[in-house]
């Protein structure tokens, strides 16, 4: 076709292909409120944590949970002498109940946040893992690992076209910091919203307590 190149959103539905999940632990300590603590960044992309943190409140709140204010949470943690995600992730979870009154804590780890070049194509990848823990018992209520990737198109088949496509993609990636944001948002949606493996609806959602057939105990 013409010089048009397309961006293909590839959903790596690996996690959703696993065996059927059971939610007995989740229902035993069903949370109303979730504290999202600063994400742990295991990648070398320094901006990953900051960009990721701007994407998580909304999908979680729209799933029906009370999500604690992120900026206030970080200020309170900093004042406790916990400026780094690594230290926060190692804290006994019961402390988050004492300090914030949170029912559950969501620990997010950024596993991949990169742009890879395969010959002349580039692939932007975001991979995130989630662990939701009960603050009374420390029990794991839910966990998930999700990847979202976007590949640059093939540039119309010709070698020149492919080179141009790769160059354009590179320029776009270099220019915009927000480039990874849609992928982080996609990873969140895949994690929270996929029926049967995601999070059951929270108390502010109309499906609350009505969707148990999809999320068996």
């Amino acid at each position, binding site marked *: 076709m013409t010089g048009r190149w397309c961006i*293909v959103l590839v959903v790596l539905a690996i996690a959703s*292909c696993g065996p059927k999940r059971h939610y007995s632990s989740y229902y035993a300590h069903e949370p109303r409120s979730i504290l999202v603590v600063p994400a742990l960044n295991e990648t070398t992309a320094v901006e990953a944590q900051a960009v990721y943190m701007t994407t998580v409140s*909304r999908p979680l709140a729209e799933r029906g949970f009370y999500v*604690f204010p992120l900026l206030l949470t970080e200020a309170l943690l900093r004042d406790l002498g916990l400026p780094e995600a690594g230290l926060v992730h190692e804290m006994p979870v019961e402390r988050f109940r*004492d300090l914030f009154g949170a029912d559950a804590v969501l620990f997010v780890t950024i596993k991949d946040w990169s742009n890879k070049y395969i010959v002349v194509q580039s692939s932007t990848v975001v991979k995130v893992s989630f662990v939701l823990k009960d603050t009374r018992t420390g029990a794991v209520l839910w966990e998930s690992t999700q990847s979202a990737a976007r590949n640059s198109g093939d540039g119309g088949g010709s070698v020149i076209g492919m080179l141009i496509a790769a160059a354009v993609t590179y320029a776009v990636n270099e220019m915009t910091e927000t480039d990874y944001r849609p992928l982080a948002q996609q990873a969140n*949606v895949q994690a929270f919203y*996929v029926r049967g493996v995601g999070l059951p609806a929270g108390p502010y959602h109309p499906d609350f307590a009505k969707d148990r057939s999809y999320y068996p105990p």
Partner: protein
Amino acid sequence: MTWAGLGRVLVVSLAALGCGAAVTGCAPRPLYDWGRYEESLQASYVSHDDDQVWSGLEATVTAAERSRHRLPPGACAEYGFALYRRGDRDRAITYFEREAQLFPESKPLMDKLIAKIRGGSSPDEQPPDGAGTDGEAAR
């Protein structure tokens, strides 16, 4: 789009179907009116622009007040905290109370912050013993 591109889309779609993964996506009608709340988060985390954090929070809260839209969790609390930082203790308390009214899950934390402001200390200041526990929050 080329045939190769189409093929890739098809393979991915089939893979998703094969897994029985019905991506339900976002709820058709959002629960909350987010206004410029996320913009504020971006201004704080990414561009470190305090003025934009403030204006985004203020616009979100005042727009919702005018149109009676539902404010998302955390918006009033963040706005209250921003007000406190600007030295407006009374209005900070008002918005912390508002957050607790809208979302009772936040009440233990909001009460704690309000008590700190009334006691003359900063809301993000912890007691020297670092215990940070009171019966209410533990409930």
